Structure formats: structure tokens, C-alpha cells
């Protein structure tokens, strides 16, 4: 039976049970993050709900007013479970947000480079090469050293770090598509340039971009956590998972592992699920691997 491409991709994707499970995990994590304010036992930002006497309680202990801290509390007496749910929100928003913005900018530049050719292409690709010859963490460090911390600054740094991979992928995909007849046909119809690039070229370059985009979200989340851990990322008023882990660092040596341990697990599960989905997408969307 002839299948539509979308259905084929879906059924191919579902053939790998691990990837399917990872996709479910991502869905659950996103839901948990979105519903954090509804399901979290405590609002970790509401100081009235916190009791310093509950500070650094091990997992499973109960507070004076009957609330059970399943994952323990941090030094402020904050419930770690609630902190993680709210932290996921920030980690996901920063990671996905910056990956999307970087994707739009990088794709637009990559497609323009491939379509325009000549000096514009050379200039854009030089910039890409230069950017990619420096490690992400270093570029981000450089930017944040100048801008200071803050959610917007971190996102800006992540976008600057990430656009180049999209641009490179978009260009190489577009270069092979550009020579096809349908582009020639569109040009013969005297369609405006932007229309050829964005309505004809772009949709056919999407598969590799989706794969890169998935991996980049995972990378962005990991990098944001790392920067926040180093004290260069999000401010303490908006703690992401990385900052929660950093808070637990000093209590680690006295054996109070849970403040750092559980946010780390949440981070690990998130990143790993996204990477697994990305791996499977790569296999499914790669035309060379199709039977």
C-alpha cells in the first residue's frame, strides 16, 4: 500500500521502541513543566511557603504542616520536587527557545548562501567556519563575560553559539536541491526570489534541519545548565536545573547528595530522551538509509 511520507516517517519512527519511549518521556516532561504551578506541592518562589527550619531535609521527610518532601529540601527549606518542576520550565524554555531562534536565523542565512552563491556565500560560510572552530562553551563564556548573567543574555549567547550549525546544514541541503528541476521550474515562472527560497527550497531542506534542531535543543539545555552551574547563566531568582545543582554543590561534601542529585537526574533524562529521539529521526529522515 502506498503511504503518505508523513505516515511513513511516523511508522518508521515507531519501529524503534526505545525512541518511541523517549518521545513519550519528552511529552511527559514538557507536560510536567507546563503544569508545574498546578501540580507542584509548593511554590518555590513564594517565600511565605518556605520554612528555613525545613532546610536540607533528606528525601521522604515531612514538614511541620504535613507536607512530605519526596526528594528532600535545599538549604532554604524549598521542596526539591517543586524546585525541579519549576526549574524544568526554565531549562526547557531557554533551550528550546534559543534553538528555535538560532534555527530561523541559521537556516535563513544558510539558504541565502546556497541560493545567492558568490561573495555572499563565501562571506557567510567563512563566518560559519570561524564560529565552529571555537568551542561552544568558550564562545558563550566570552559573550556572558561581557553581558553579565540573565535569561535573555543566556539565550542570546546560545543563539550565537548555535546558528552556525544550522547555516552549514541548510546550505549543504540547499546546494543539492538547488540543481533540481522544480527549482528551475519555479524560476521559469518568474516567481519572486524569496518565494522560490522559502516556499520551494526550504520545505525540501527541512529533514536534515529537523534532525540538527533536535540535537541542538539538547545541546542548548546542557550548555545552559553548565553556564548556570558556573554562575554565568540564569539569575538566582529564576533557577534552572543547572542552578539547582550548583546550589547543592557546597552541601555535597557533607553527604547531602539530594540537592544536586535529583535535579541532575531530571536534566540527564531530558537530554538523553531528546538525543535518542534525534538519533532515530536521523535514521528515519535520511533518504540514503531507506529500504
Amino acid at each position, binding site marked *: 500500500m502506498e503511504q503518505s511520507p508523513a505516515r511513513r516517517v511516523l511508522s518508521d519512527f515507531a519501529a524503534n521502541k526505545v525512541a518511541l519511549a523517549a518521545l513519550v518521556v519528552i511529552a511527559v516532561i514538557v507536560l510536567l513543566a507546563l503544569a508545574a504551578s498546578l501540580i507542584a506541592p509548593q511554590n518555590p518562589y513564594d517565600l511565605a511557603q518556605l520554612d528555613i527550619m525545613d532546610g536540607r531535609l533528606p528525601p521522604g521527610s515531612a514538614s511541620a504542616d504535613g507536607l512530605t518532601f519526596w526528594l528532600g529540601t535545599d538549604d532554604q527549606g524549598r521542596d526539591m520536587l517543586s524546585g525541579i518542576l519549576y526549574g524544568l520550565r526554565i531549562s526547557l524554555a531557554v533551550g528550546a527557545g534559543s534553538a528555535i531562534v538560532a534555527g530561523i536565523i541559521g537556516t535563513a542565512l544558510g539558504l541565502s548562501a546556497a541560493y545567492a552563491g558568490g561573495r555572499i556565500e563565501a562571506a557567510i560560510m567563512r563566518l560559519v567556519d570561524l564560529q565552529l572552530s571555537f568551542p561552544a*562553551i568558550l564562545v558563550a563564556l566570552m559573550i556572558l563575560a561581557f553581558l553579565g548573567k540573565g535569561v535573555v543574555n543566556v539565550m542570546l549567547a546560545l543563539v550565537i553559539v548555535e546558528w552556525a550549525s544550522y547555516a552549514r546544514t541548510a546550505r549543504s541541503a540547499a546546494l543539492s536541491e538547488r540543481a533540481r528541476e522544480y527549482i528551475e521550474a519555479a524560476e521559469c515562472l518568474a516567481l519572486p526570489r524569496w518565494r522560490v527560497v522559502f516556499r520551494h527550497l526550504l520545505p525540501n531542506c527541512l529533514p536534515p534541519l529537523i534532525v540538527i534542531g533536535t540535537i541542538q535543543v539538547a545541546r542548548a539545555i546542557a550548555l545552559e545548565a553548565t553556564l548556570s552551574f558556573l554562575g554565568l547563566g540564569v539569575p538566582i531568582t529564576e533557577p534552572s536545573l543547572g542552578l539547582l545543582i550548583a546550589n547543592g554543590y557546597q552541601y555535597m561534601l557533607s553527604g547531602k547528595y539530594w540537592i544536586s*542529585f535529583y535535579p541532575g537526574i531530571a536534566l540527564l533524562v531530558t537530554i538523553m530522551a531528546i538525543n535518542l529521539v534525534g538519533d532515530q529521526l536521523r535514521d528515519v529522515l535520511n533518504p540514503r538509509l531507506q529500504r
Partner: protein
Amino acid sequence: MAGWLVRRLVQAGFVMLAMSAIVFVGLHAIGNPVDILISPDADQAERARAIAALGLDKPLWEQYFFFLRGAVQGDLGRSFVFNEPALKLILGRMPATLELAVTAVIMSVLVGLPLGLFAGLYPNSIAGRTVMAGSIMGFSLPGFWVGLMLIMVFAVTLGWLPSSGRGTTAELFGVQWSFLTRDGLRHLLMPALNLSLFNISLVLRLARAGVRETMPLDYIRFARAKGLSPRRVVFVHVLRNILIPVVTVVGLELGSTIAFSVVTESVFAWPGMGKLIIDSINVLDRPVIVAYLMIVVALFVTINLVVDLLYTVLDPRVRLGGRA
């Protein structure tokens, strides 16, 4: 070859120039460079003197020239905190970072290559699959968190290894090294393992992919048909060919490893340049930040150049100048 080298050197010079301009513009973009480059404790007279000395009353392009001239002469300002030339401070911390990064890279090859060979030769065995699943973990685990967990397990719970610092060092070529003493090695082991985790996964995957690609090729079949022992086929014929990508990537990764040592050094309080830059950013010791950025850019331009050179030496198919 000479022409290529000159072109590459000129290119590297341009990158340095461009990066220095970016750092310089960055300095101006965040506010008055007077506040950035001169200690806030300085009094009025001292400020005026410093402004004149740094040329901050001059037009911007002239200031950039001053900055460049200083950089070329090795003068990148004085640290507010240590009251030492920033350059000297950073170079003094560099051996600790290089020691950590090089140890991590060596570890990644020693661990990653055999595991990758194994996973490539037996891709469907349980052990082979386990190795591959483990490598996904290696990519996904946030390095700083793994560092914390290593400390938790090996330093706090088991008490086998120390959690921070370089331990006892010994002198070689006028520099202090940890790897020369037993205590130093104990201090080095955990941070190096932490730093190499990503590279272990990378080398492992490269080696596995290389083996899987190489095994069905004609010359391997021929080597087998000649009656060579499997051991000789794997270690001479296969290994030599997968070494090209592995060496290239490991070389390229030395740079990232040095960059990522920022994280490991912070976790394990390893007194290298990475820890210095984070501390400097936190106390706004800006001359050190600027000097660090310039040094690291120079380091990276050099590493990229050396890797390009090595690549052509190792793989005769890549002939310089691109006469393709």
C-alpha cells in the same frame, strides 16, 4: 607546501586580528572602558594618569591601536585582584590546565579506542550493544554533574580519592606538575576522567564506525585470504586506517577539552586557567578576562593550524593546496 603554510599563517593572523577587534568592541559595548580597565579603588589623580597611559582620551581607532600594541608586547593589563600582570597570571596557571586536558585526551584514546574496536567487531553482541548504549550516556551526561557525582562516590562515600586541588607537585622544566608524584596523580585521576568522558564516547563511536566501514573492504578480505591472523588484520590493517579520523578528532578535541576544563576545574577546584577565568568573571577582574580571551583565541588558532598540518602528514590523500 611553503606557500600553503604562509597562506594559512596569514589567515590565522587575520582571525586573531578579527577576534581582538571583537574583544575590544565588547569592552566598549558594556560600558565605559575607564571603569573596566582601571581599578575602582583608584583616586582621581590616578584615574587621570591611567586614562592618559591607556590612551582612553584618544579616538576609538587609536585606542584599538594602543590595545593591539600592548597585546603584541605582551602587556594586557594588570589584575585588580592579584595586582600582577594579567598575562603572567594566566600563563602561570596554564600548565595545570594543559596537564589536565592532555591527561584527559590520552585517557579518552586509551579507553575509547579498545571499546570502539570491540563494539565494531562484535556489533550485535550484548557487550557491544552495552558499550554503544554507554556512549549515548557519555554524550548526554552533563559533565559538571558527573563531576559532582564522582566526588560524591569516590571522595565522600568511599573516601578513596581527594575531591579538590592538585595535591603534591614536582618540578620539571621549571614548572610544577601533578603527574610526577603519587599524591598528584591521585588528585589528577578524577578530574581527568570527568573531562575525558565526552571524548571517550566520541573516540569510541568513531572507532566503531571506522571498523564497520573498513571490515567489508577488499583489502581486508585480501589480508584475510592471505591467511593473516585475525589479530594482525585488526591491529595492523584495520587500526591503521581508522587512526586517521581518530587522530584528527582527538587533535581538534584538545581545544574543546581545554575549553571545557573550565567546568571540570570549577568542580574539582583545580587551579588552572579555567578556574581563574570563572573567579575573575565573578569578581569582575576584567583585565584578566580580556587577557584570557586573547590567549585562548591565540591558542585555538594555533591548534587549528597544527591539526590541519598533522592531517595532511597523516593522510597522503589530502594534498596541500587543494588541487582537487
